[in-house]
């Protein structure tokens, strides 16, 4: 397929790996931020191709994984109300809340629907004025503009039966939290290409200055990731730390200004709890006061919902790159995609599920040697 196959070429990949092998003289620990990047790395077995001195750890960039347990519980509570229709992206449905998940709520008669775009939720609200339609808005800066647009449009139309359970998260504060930790091992980051398509990469320059750590904004195809890794290793070997952009076919320095405008119009920055990590100051987006009438949390009175995470799940360490999924004693036994203890085992972008789905045989072979 044009514009995709070129980025999956095995010969070019081997060429980049050869360069990387020559260039890496010391061990380096790198982290890809985005869940989509984790998915590609695992799906194509890119970590198998890398020289042993380069260790990849998988960051907190899977929106499904980091959505807090209490947010899931809120969605479940709203979906259980007879007057409500909860509309969500598909992979949120299987994420376990404290007691159940949205698939089970649906089976019990809850009106839960899957869409590809929040504008579909708007359409449904217009066509069903008797239903209280709630869009479950999770994700990073990537999905936030379309969700902001939906709320903005609803306000403009005076659509009274539409609201949003918003739990957006922001990447730069999460990187800051990781780098500020005394246990941090990460020496370079593959930046989130889609997030930066929206936001540009200006805000990553502060992180580089503050922590002297290289960040290369990367794409999502195998060659994108290999090239980004090569650019990171080059900086590290040369003792440099800068923001560089590998994903030039999509990302510009300024980003998408119109998208940023609508974000600022509808959302404001707030403190946010991340599943597996905990609270990070100024790391989320909530609806502004001017849009409070579209805040499902207020409409359904779910602001007080709280939840504790299962103790056995080590997702905190996994999402911070301190441990690999396979370091967990429950991995593949008590915790599988069919029966996940924690969110990284749920989504196909979650580090644990990606290891389980794509790499189990390789892990088994290594262990038996």
């Amino acid at each position: 397929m044009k514009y995709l196959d070129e980025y999956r070429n095995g010969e070019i990949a081997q060429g980049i790996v050869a360069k990387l092998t020559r260039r890496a003289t010391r061990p380096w620990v790198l982290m890809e931020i985005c869940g989509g990047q984790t998915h590609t790395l695992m799906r194509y077995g890119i970590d198998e191709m890398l020289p042993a001195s380069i260790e990849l750890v998988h960051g907190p960039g899977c929106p499904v994984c980091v959505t807090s347990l209490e947010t899931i519980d809120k969605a479940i509570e709203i979906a259980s109300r007879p007057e409500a229709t909860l509309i969500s992206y598909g992979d949120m449905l299987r994420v376990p809340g404290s007691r159940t998940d949205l698939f089970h709520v649906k089976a019990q008669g809850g009106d839960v629907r899957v869409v590809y775009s929040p504008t579909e939720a708007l359409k449904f609200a217009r066509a069903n004025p008797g239903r209280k339609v709630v869009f479950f808005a999770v994700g990073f800066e990537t999905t936030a503009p379309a969700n902001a647009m939906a709320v903005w449009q609803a306000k403009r139309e005076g659509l009274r039966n539409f609201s949003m359970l918003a739990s957006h998260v922001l990447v730069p504060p999460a990187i800051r939290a990781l780098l500020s930790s005394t246990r941090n091992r990460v020496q370079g980051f593959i930046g989130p290409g889609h997030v930066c398509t929206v936001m540009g990469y200006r805000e990553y320059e502060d992180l580089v200055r503050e922590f002297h750590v290289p960040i290369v904004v990367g794409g999502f195809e195998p060659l994108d990731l290999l090239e980004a890794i090569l650019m990171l290793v080059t900086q590290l070997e040369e003792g440099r730390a800068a923001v560089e952009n590998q994903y030039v076919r999509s990302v510009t320095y300024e980003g998408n200004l119109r998208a940023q405008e609508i974000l600022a119009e509808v959302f404001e920055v707030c403190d946010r709890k991340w599943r597996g990590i905990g609270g990070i100051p100024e790391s989320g987006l909530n609806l502004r006061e001017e849009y409070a009438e579209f805040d499902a949390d207020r409409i359904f009175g779910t602001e007080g919902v709280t939840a504790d995470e299962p103790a056995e799940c080590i997702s905190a360490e996994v999402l911070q790159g301190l441990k690999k999924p396979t370091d967990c004693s429950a991995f593949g036994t008590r915790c599988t995609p069919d029966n996940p203890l924690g969110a990284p085992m749920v989504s196909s972008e979650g580090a644990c599920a990606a290891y389980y789905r794509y790499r189990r045989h390789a892990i088994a072979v290594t262990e038996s040697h």
Partner: protein
Amino acid sequence: MPQDAKLEMALKCPIPIADGESILMGHGSGGRMSGDLLRNILLPALQNPVLERLDDQAIVELGGSRIAFTTDSFVVKPLFFPGGDIGTLAVNGTVNDLAMGGAKPLFLSLALILEEGLPLDTLCRVMESIRVAAALANVLVVTGDTKVVEKGSGDGLFVNTSGIGLVSSGVRLSANQARPGDLVLLSGTIGDHGITILSQREGLEFESAVTSDTAALHTLVAAMLDANSDIRCLRDPTRGGLSSSLNEIASRSHVGVELEEDAIPIREEVRGACELLGLDPLYVANEGKLLAIVEPKSAGAILDAMWQHPLGGSAQIIGTITDSHPAVVTIRTRLGTSRIVDLLSGDQLPRIC
């Protein structure tokens, strides 16, 4: 009394059911949840050696003949789609389940569950499709049933067909017969049916040139068996796609399957739609394709026969059977690395971004 007690014991559900457990959509996906339902609830209630073969059809001896018998229900939404409708699926699906046992399909039953309010015109169109599909497949619909349910209790129209066919004495096909060294053949492009249906779904309509591949495969099977009878197993990779069928073969035969990503034929439109929707074509449904596990020395003759047939023109060898990772399917990617092609838990879920 002792007999009653035995009966009662046997009918007890063998697994403890947690309070409030109920059927989820994933139980109908053809993935791991479907398998669990079959193993834990359905099979224990019905134990018998014919059923426990778990192939797409049962094969029983009756009066000296080997009879293939199968049944399938059809609940597709929308009822009509490019390339076919629920009627063509209901005929071809059951014909194919018989064909995968190497049977010559002969007779079908047809049961219709009609929802109050269904336009008669819709029913007429579906019946016409059934007539045409049965004539093309050279099978007779010889018995049937209709039931009507209240509005809201059905989705317009549900169809069930059962089928009977005859199997020649030398033909023994089953998912438990794959052996290390065997080759995996695929009759054509994957994902056409599933992507066609998705492209028509409410809330997801997108323009697509793809049409459903629904087709009766029994003449292709007959041509393959005529060319060489060393076929170990045939499967039509319907719901759950290539991955579910191959995982089933791998686990029933206690062998590994190694696929070559480059060898699997996929239409550009299907690849494009899968990229956009965040789906893996290996898990997308087909309604007119078959997988064959064959001995390597027979593969050439069987492939030749497939290429000569209109439904096998782009048949390919897509992988091999191995003893190195029993019950696991892997794929060699374009980068030369390898990954697992796992059985999904339930339906494939679109990713957020």
